[in-house]
């Protein structure tokens, strides 16, 4: 027991305050680890991973939102173009008939667009519908829509803007977009303002 104590004491006394030289690289590594640990820890007063994360999420959210807006704007733009050149400020209901065979009917936002021959002929217009930009049908880019309809002046509710559509222009509605697909032609059975 005494011998054991002596050995242990020898180790204890010699090594308790053993202080070897620290390699210089240890300091740099320590600084790196300290910076990382403080960066990962939330601290309201300094920039850290939490702020970076929040900024990234905000950026990502903004990017996504902006992308959506761009898409929406682009879609909306098509419609506005359509309104501007053909139906600006007018009440209108459009029914399109494709030149070729094979009827296709799309009902979009209170506006009927029929690609192909209408099964039941032109629809009677019961009352005109105001088409805001948002509800205008998403007509295909580059597709030329045609209308044979005359402005309906029977009920005397024709908007003065309707006069802007000249007889030779009113028959054609072009949806403008970059890189348009090959043009297809549709007949519009009725186009009432």
């Amino acid at each position, binding site marked *: 027991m005494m011998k054991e104590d002596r*050995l242990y004491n020898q180790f204890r006394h010699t090594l308790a305050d*053993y202080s070897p030289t620290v*390699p210089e690289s240890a300091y740099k590594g320590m600084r790196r680890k300290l910076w990382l640990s403080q960066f990962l820890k939330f601290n309201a007063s300094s920039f850290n991973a939490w702020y970076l994360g929040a900024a990234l999420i905000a950026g990502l959210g903004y990017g996504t939102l902006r992308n959506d807006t761009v898409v929406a704007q682009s879609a909306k733009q098509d419609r506005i173009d359509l309104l501007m050149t053909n139906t600006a400020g007018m009440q209108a209901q459009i029914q399109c008939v494709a030149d070729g065979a094979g009827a296709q009917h799309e009902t979009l936002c209170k506006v009927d667009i029929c690609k192909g021959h209408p099964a039941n002929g032109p629809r009677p217009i019961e009352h005109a519908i105001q088409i805001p930009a948002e509800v205008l049908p998403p007509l295909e880019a580059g597709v030329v829509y045609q209308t044979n309809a005359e402005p309906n002046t029977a009920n005397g509710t024709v908007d003065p803007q309707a006069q802007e559509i000249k007889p030779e222009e009113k028959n054609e509605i072009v949806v403008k977009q970059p890189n348009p697909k090959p043009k297809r032609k549709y007949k519009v059975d009725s186009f009432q303002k």
Partner: protein
Amino acid sequence: MQMDVQKEMIQGCVKGSKKAQDMLYKKHASLLYGICLRYTKNRMEAQDVLQEVFVKIYNNIHTYHHDGSFEGWLRRIAVNTSITNYRKNLKHAYQADVDVVLVGKDEPMAVEDLEFTAEEMMTCIEKLPTGYKTVFNLYVIEGFLHKEIADMLGVDVNTSKSQLSRAKIYLQRELAAISRVKMASVS
């Protein structure tokens, strides 16, 4: 006066002053590196643990309330970090314990009356398997009881006792070998 300097240094560290942090590092890095060396397999690992020790010190220095020895507080962090590191590498350490230590039948030479330098002792400790080394350090240098060591390392009390006993035999042999070399060189 020295206490005031230390207090100022600690307060600087609490505020995150780089100057105060560097001062603390310069003053205590050697001692803490010595502790880390005793518990780790090699110098690279000891450096890693030392870096973690300082990160813990800087991040938790606000919890030191000047009610005990500051050096003791630093030592405790170094020992605890070394134990955490040991437990992290426990699987490999156990493998090494089984593989490396061969306890012979010969009675080890009495080395208790001989003088050894710190480097010689460190060389012997360095050769110990990590498990033995950890128990030896905790019991002999840090002064913990076997029950406390068993709780810290998550082992049985008897495991702690047997590891200390084997470490002692191993160290006696290593020291005996060193003294034989020394005697041979003198004669």
